[in-house]
């Protein structure tokens, strides 16, 4: 029993830290409120969809901006397309409460609007970084929840 209580406390503390450090915002709470016995996996399902969506979009963004592409000069970058992808990522990150990813997307959109290549490259790096962080943290969170379910029997 004691082990379970400890696990639960760890989960509470960990979750609180994610909010405190700005990785997650209130929208994540909203999602948790939507989970119940009739849909016990809801949060994991939505977040998984987000991961898939984000990875697809980051891929597209990289393709558009990648320096290995020979004709990448400012004139050849389709900033509208770039912006469209960032807009999507901004939307989905907002919908699950991935606050830091969402914030970087806002800067990224500004860079696109300014047609600022350097800015876009930097933003892409940032958004990859933030995405990777929040992914790791959410996976940890879900793992901890699973441990608790298993420990509770």
């Amino acid at each position, binding site marked *: 029993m004691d082990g379970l209580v400890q696990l639960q406390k760890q989960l509470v503390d960990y979750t609180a830290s994610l909010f405190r450090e700005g990785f997650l915002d*209130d929208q994540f709470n909203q999602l948790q409120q939507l989970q119940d016995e009739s849909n016990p996996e809801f949060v994991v399902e939505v977040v998984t*969809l987000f991961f898939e969506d984000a990875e697809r979009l980051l891929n597209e963004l990289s393709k558009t901006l990648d320096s290995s592409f020979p004709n990448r000069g400012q004139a050849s970058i389709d900033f509208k397309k770039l912006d469209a992808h960032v807009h999507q990522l901004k939307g989905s990150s907002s*919908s699950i409460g991935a*606050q830091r990813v969402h*914030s970087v997307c806002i800067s990224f959109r500004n860079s696109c609007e300014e047609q600022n290549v350097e800015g876009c490259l930097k933003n892409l790096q940032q958004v990859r970084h933030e995405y990777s962080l929040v992914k790791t943290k959410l996976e940890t969170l879900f793992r901890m929840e699973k441990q608790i379910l298993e420990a509770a029997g």
Partner: protein
Amino acid sequence: METDGVVSIDHVSPEDSQEVHVLAVDDSLVDRKVIERLLKISACKVTAVDSGIRALQFLGLDEQRRTSESDGFVPSLKVDLIITDYCMPEMTGYELLKKIKESSMFREIPVVIMSSENILPRIDRCLEEGAEDFIVKPVKLSDVKRLKGYMATREVKVGSHDRRSGAEGVGIEINNKRKLEEEEEISDVSSSPPSISTLSSSPFASSPSSSPTSSPSVLASPIRRLKMSNTD
């Protein structure tokens, strides 16, 4: 059950179906999943589609069919509300709204627009075109609860409100303006209390008008502009 002096909401639609049926339109898979869950947990039947074109197809309004009776096509369930994203490829939510309002068969269905962008001219344009309300994303449970007021019954136009918060009758405008106050970039404050209780006085709340385009846009605009001046 509170009624705030307004006729109590009849949650049973006049049609055979007990539950309200919402057609949700969004090109984002993540958002579709969320809105679907928000609606289901609020006791609505949901049909979620990924484009305006598919929405029109579902309604029987697409190019191939002039009326929903052609080819014996009948939508599987009467639609009580349409909620659509604004920014979508090919057909925007605004274009979808126009098509619906142009249709004699479907123009009475309330249409709500969602957008991640808090752009006043956009909001105005949608409301002028007949949208019932405009929700700034991300969509929350309190937004959906408010929507139920549009769908429950057409005879009684009540200001649906979050009962726990005790907001006054004009819940529609209140929550809409609360959304307008929130800057996208600012991390969300805790849960969502309707903050504009000072704007509560309104004769509209008790009006039994069933026209979807009357009071909300008239009352919302000046109040919204007032609020907008305090933001950004």
